[in-house]
């Protein structure tokens, strides 16, 4: 295990150093420019807020030490649980302590953080340190949607979070299941299912034929993460969050009720207790071969293939029993959620803005980011065009080319998390709605309440202010699936 880890560290370190040292590229690369400019700050320390847990192993074990070696600037990693990051960043900003220099920010928070004055505008730094060209390599869906507020840069998109579908090729390709499917539904079993109707028919039939060994599918039903799934499916069913003129919530429209009703129906052929499945439970079920299909974030695909799971940091991940039997595809409906993600920003109250900016430019750069997205333990997912096509990445496991192709396709067609003023209040209403759904309440009644809560929040924020924020968000190319 240690040998593999040392090998990985050595190759990533060597790759990064080699990339920096290449003379032709070195003169132009944003990483090199950042390192050269940062040397004047040698001996100082910068802090960066990072999601606690696996995510933070990137700056702790890889990028932080490498940056210090290159520039002499020490990096202090402030680990904060995701649920507290927004609060901590705002509280620190209000207190004006300057305790945080660089930040990891979920893009959906950006309008609120910008409005609170907590984020430094980055356009000037991007130009000053010559990063604009390399920004163009970031996949358009992240670059055009998760970088700016009102046309100004406040974050460097740094994590290609997107839901994709994982399915068992051996189960869906089983002739017995295929025959049973055709006999029941009158058409060939689609591999993979492309619509939710197909998905539900395939999943239900697998459970029926196998008696639950494996179950047709499982999902993350926990409200905290399930709300991303709701946002995705609601829009794939044609749902619109608000009436753009009146800002009245439309979440209780037939599209919303259909999603909730379908979820309840699906639970019947999913594993018992599916209502409590979170990220880990769903992952364990898939990796142990208990389920034939699922939707989730990109690390599922890597761990299902067994990539890096012998790392000590990943010893909590169940050993994959499905390596080599997993297919990857865009979610049914064709427009997966770009759920969460992270952008790198600078705190407006930082006393080390230039040094902090140079660090995030370096992290985000073409040369360094390709190394970071291949760290098996750090959860950063491909977000640059070059990541999807990297030959090095494609060679990591046999099915990696298909995995990267699925991620790229998902990134091209993905849809954004809702991001308006005080977004969390709207998300909280959905979370509560999902929680009530699992307690057996009527979908229409729940969604009527959710819509009422949304309207009340809009009133409190101010209809006109929110209307402008929604118009800004809805005008982004990936806010809604393109109209057919």
């Amino acid at each position: 295990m240690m040998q593999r880890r040392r090998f990985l560290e050595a190759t990533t370190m060597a790759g990064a150093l080699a990339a920096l040292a290449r003379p032709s590229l070195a003169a132009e690369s944003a990483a090199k420019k950042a390192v050269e400019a940062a040397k004047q700050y040698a001996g100082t320390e910068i802090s960066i807020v990072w999601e606690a847990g696996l995510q933070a192993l990137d700056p702790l074990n890889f990028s932080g030490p490498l940056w210090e070696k290159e520039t002499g600037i020490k990096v202090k990693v402030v680990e904060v649980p995701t649920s507290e990051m927004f609060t901590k960043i705002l509280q620190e900003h209000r207190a004006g302590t300057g305790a945080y220099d660089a930040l990891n920010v979920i893009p959906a928070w950006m309008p609120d953080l910008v409005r609170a004055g907590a984020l430094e505008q980055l356009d000037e730094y991007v130009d000053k340190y010559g990063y604009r060209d390399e920004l163009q390599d970031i996949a358009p869906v992240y670059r055009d949607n998760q970088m700016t507020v009102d046309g100004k840069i406040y974050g460097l998109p740094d994590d290609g979070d997107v839901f994709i579908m994982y399915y068992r090729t051996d189960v869906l390709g089983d002739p017995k299941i295929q025959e049973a499917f055709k006999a029941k539904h009158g058409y060939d079993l689609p591999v993979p299912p492309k619509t939710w109707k197909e998905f539900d028919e395939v999943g239900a039939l697998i459970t029926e034929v196998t008696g639950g060994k494996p179950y047709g599918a499982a999902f993350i039903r926990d409200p905290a993460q399930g709300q991303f799934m709701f946002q995705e499916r609601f829009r794939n069913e044609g749902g619109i969050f608000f009436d753009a003129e009146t800002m009245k919530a439309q979440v209780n429209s037939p599209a919303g009720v259909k999603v909730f009703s379908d979820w309840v129906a699906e639970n019947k052929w999913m594993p018992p207790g599916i209502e409590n499945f979170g990220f880990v439970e769903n992952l364990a079920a898939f990796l142990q071969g208990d389920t034939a299909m699922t939707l989730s974030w990109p690390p599922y695909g890597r761990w299902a293939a067994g990539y890096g799971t012998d790392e000590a940091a990943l010893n909590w991940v169940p050993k994959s029993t499905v390596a080599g039997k997993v297919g990857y595809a865009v979610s049914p409906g064709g427009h997966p959620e770009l759920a969460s993600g992270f952008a790198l920003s600078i705190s407006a109250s930082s006393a080390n803005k230039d040094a902090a900016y140079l660090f995030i430019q370096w992290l985000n750069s073409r040369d360094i980011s390709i190394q970071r997205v291949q760290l098996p333990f750090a959860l950063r997912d491909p977000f640059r065009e070059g990541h999807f096509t990297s030959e090095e990445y494609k060679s990591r496991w046999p099915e990696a080319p298909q995995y990267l192709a699925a991620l790229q396709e998902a990134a091209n067609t993905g849809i954004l998390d809702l991001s308006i003023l005080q977004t969390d209040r709207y998300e909280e209403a959905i979370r509560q709605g999902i929680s009530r759904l699992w307690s057996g309440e009527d979908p229409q009644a729940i969604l009527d309440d959710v819509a009422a809560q949304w309207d009340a929040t809009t009133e409190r924020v101010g209809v006109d202010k929110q209307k402008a924020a929604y118009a800004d968000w809805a005008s982004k190319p990936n806010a809604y699936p393109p109209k057919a």
Partner: protein
Amino acid sequence: MTQQNVHRHDRRFGYAMIAPAVAIILFIGLFPLIWTLLVSVQNISLIDEDTSFQGLLNYQRLMSDTRFWEALGHTLLFTAVALPLELILGLALALLFLEELPGRPVFVALLVLPTVISPIVAGAAWRLLFDNRFGPINQVISWVAGEPVTILWLNDPNFVYAAILIAEVWQWTPFMFLLLFASLTNVDPSLGEAARIDGAGFWRTLWSITLPVIRPVIVIALLIRGLDLFRIFDVIWALTKGGPGTRTETISIYAYVQGFQQFETSYTAAMAFVIIVILTILVMAALKRVEIAR
């Protein structure tokens, strides 16, 4: 110096001596209260720059906030069920351990163990126990039922209150036991013996002799636990986060959500002030009862 002047001088000296202590108490006790009141009449939130004076708007909003009243109802329900349960079980255990039982010190030490565990840890442990897939509780029920049973303890409205109450009562009954046990050991045994000589049975002796003697301790124990239950947060947060929906949301959870997730600082201050008023009334009423009892 006349007698009157000496008396006046002594009084002044007395006031001067206690003045620092009074000032500190006022600062510690009243300053947060006044500050909360001031914040509650403004429009402070972490997100908005506008902090203008709002008057009683937050209180008006609170009065029509059904979620607040529901949370208050849930809190009172938890208190009304858990408090008597803890009292009865604690008293029963205290009476049991009054007898000289073999290994009594060991059992008492084991019994007290839940109380020293952090409530959030206790909640997390019970969450594992109630887990519908891997939790032992469902497994034991399945063995008894002879078929797989999947009770969604923390999702199903029919079970979620029971689950929370089991965890809460498990953790805090020992506290009640400790107070009552200490109090019972101080009851003069001759009182019970005299009653028994007069023909009183166990229940009669308990009702007419023991309980009246330890009544002040019972009231204090109920007061302490009642206040704790009114502020109940950790165990519910660990188990359900107030769900499903807001069905188990208590006043403390709602205040936390408003203050630290929705960043409604002023609104939360108004809520806190109303809670303080309610608690003050309850505590004063309880203390009055103690006074009467004495």
